[in-house]
């Protein structure tokens, strides 16, 4: 008894408690729902069997049904375009801004803080505002493009199948840029200044310093940001609800919005869960990248 007690206060038992508490927490709040979701994807679930766990088992039928639907391939393709487009845009603009503020001109830190405003705004509000900006007949964006002479007729950003997905990507880039910028700015400030001094003495120009010092030193930050970006873009839902509703004709529909539509508009919870499972695989990939890239931080 005494040994057990002392092991808990100082020893193996203590380690187990340390691991056990967060593990239980994760299992209860993330693990079980995840497993439940996987279970649902193999069952036929409708509104009246929602409350029970034992439901008709259908094997892979939900998966097969999904992949025989004509819109599935295009929705998955949209998801990839959305994720890659959003992350690239957010990262490039965010990085450019971070480098810009790194120059540290008077008021730089204030301005940088102000950029976070876009990140704090609720997605539905952002969506509603972009809805007006992107509107075809009276949108601000079309007005600007016409006044500057960049184009002669209105583009229906939300309603033209060629543009609708990009309309949401544009709004999402705006929404996520500041988050990227802040994380990257933190990464930048962590690079020791003497590295640059030494490089300058050796005659490296700004471009060479960027490629040989800044980028390699930022590797773990960049990896983490891209992984987080992947998770955030796969979670992005409000903008779709507010701007296009996944339309027209699914041209801006993505997996996460589709899963919601199947579950809560068509009440086909089994298929909604199936899409979530497919998405989980993607997110697990992102999580691996995230864990691997932050592991470097410990060493560095």
């Amino acid at each position, binding site marked *: 008894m005494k040994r057990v007690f002392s092991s808990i206060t100082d020893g193996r038992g203590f380690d187990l408690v340390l691991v056990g508490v967060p593990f239980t927490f994760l299992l209860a709040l993330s693990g079980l729902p995840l497993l439940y979701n996987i279970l649902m994807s193999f069952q036929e679930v409708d*509104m*009246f*069997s*929602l*409350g*029970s766990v034992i439901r008709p088992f259908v094997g892979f039928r939900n998966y097969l049904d999904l992949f025989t639907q*004509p*819109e599935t391939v295009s929705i998955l393709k949209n998801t990839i375009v959305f994720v890659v487009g959003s992350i690239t845009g957010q990262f490039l603009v965010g990085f450019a801004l971070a480098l810009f503020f790194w120059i540290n001109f008077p008021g730089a830190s204030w301005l940088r803080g102000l950029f976070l405003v876009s990140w704090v705004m609720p997605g539905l509000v952002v969506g509603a505002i972009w809805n007006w900006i992107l*509107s*075809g*007949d*009276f949108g601000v964006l079309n007005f600007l493009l016409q006044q500057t002479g960049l184009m002669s007729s209105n583009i*229906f950003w*939300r*309603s*033209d*199948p060629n543009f*609708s997905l990009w309309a949401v990507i544009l709004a999402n880039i705006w929404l996520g840029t500041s988050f990227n910028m802040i994380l990257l700015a933190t990464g930048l400030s962590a690079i020791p200044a003497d590295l640059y001094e030494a490089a300058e003495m050796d005659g490296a120009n700004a471009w060479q310093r960027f490629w040989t010092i800044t980028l390699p030193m930022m590797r773990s930050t960049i990896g983490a940001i891209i992984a987080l970006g992947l998770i955030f873009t796969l979670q992005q839902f409000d903008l779709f609800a507010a*701007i*296009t*509703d*996944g*339309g*027209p*004709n*699914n*041209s801006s529909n993505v997996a996460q919005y589709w899963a919601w*539509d199947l579950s*809560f*508009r*068509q*009440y*086909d919870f089994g298929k909604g869960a199936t899409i979530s499972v497919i998405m989980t695989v993607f997110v697990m990939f992102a999580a691996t990248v995230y864990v691997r890239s932050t592991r470097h931080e410990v060493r560095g």
Partner: protein
Amino acid sequence: MGIRRTMISIALALASASFAGMGARAEDVKLVLWSLDRDIQPAPNLIKEFNAQKNGIQIEYRQLQFDDVVSEAMRAFSTGKAPDIITIDNPNHAMFASRKAFLDLTDMIRQSKVIKPENYFPGPLKSVTWDEKYYGVPKATNTIALYYNKDLFKAAGLDPEKPPQTWTELVTTAKKLTNPSKNIYGLTFSAKANEEGTFQFLPWAQMGGATYKTINSEGAVKALTVWKQMLDEKLASPDTLTRSQWDATATFNAGNAAMAISGPWEIDRMLKDAKFQWGTALLPVPSEGAQRSSAMGDFNWAIFSSTKHPKEAFKALEFFASKDVTMYKDFGQLPARSDLPVPPTGNPQKDSALATFVEQLKYAQPRGPSPEWPKISKAIQDAIQAALTGQMEPKAALDQADAKIKSIGG
């Protein structure tokens, strides 16, 4: 002494009376009612009036959000925690009725002196009917008709008292009214990829002789072709594909569309926002003398089959139905009753618009009724959007929808 005795007896009487009162209160039947009505809408106010009667039944109210009604209701029912009474959007009614989640009210309605089926419009009544039995009572109703801008009619040389009657007339009128240089579209409506798109399209298909079970029949294809023509020729904004009815009609109010298809919920905003003379007309039909049809919206009352107090719950519904008379005056919603004239409001423009909608309501048809309605609706939305974006021909798009609906078993 005498006074004292009287005092005591009065005190005793009072005490026993209050005791009896308390006893009665403790025995009150408690009902729970869920609805999405806000404080200025019918449900919470009717409940207040009902509770004030102190007839031994007390109703507790819970407000839901629009998107939550169905999912909350089914979660509650499947876990045995359903309320006694709920208000449900009419296309979702059949889903619950077909699974016997709602109580069969047929016998109670037959004996009722307040709720009589013949007093209701056929459309709303059909939406509470499943397998020829009544599983609810229509709460309110609405439909869509044509609004038009009389000033723009005059400016285009059209007779403002002769709105278009047929689809062909609608197209030619829209052509005359469209004026890109002034940012004016001929018509505005909603073909959005949600229930609103179905709500607006189905009446057109039905006027063409189709139902959701024959959605690829000739009349429906023709309807979708007319819609496509409207968008292809820019008689309606391309944003019709992503705009809600409310946002679409806002462009009408702003003078950027000369005609609009929408419902009576627009009237009050239009009276305030529209700086021009406007009128209303019944939805144009495919050809002169063809059958009319229209959409049907709004909610129904229903009692969950799990209730422990079916009689008391029905009594509450009877009370609510008895208040239909003042529904428009008090809450601005149209009762689903054909026996109650909508009282004049004193505003001639509003009264004539209401008259149009009441007339249109005679032809209103429910969506479904089918327990699989959400999936059927999705198939129809997909077809509308595929055709209007030019990615499929109307016929092919509706064929695909028909195949989907048949596979769902609609």
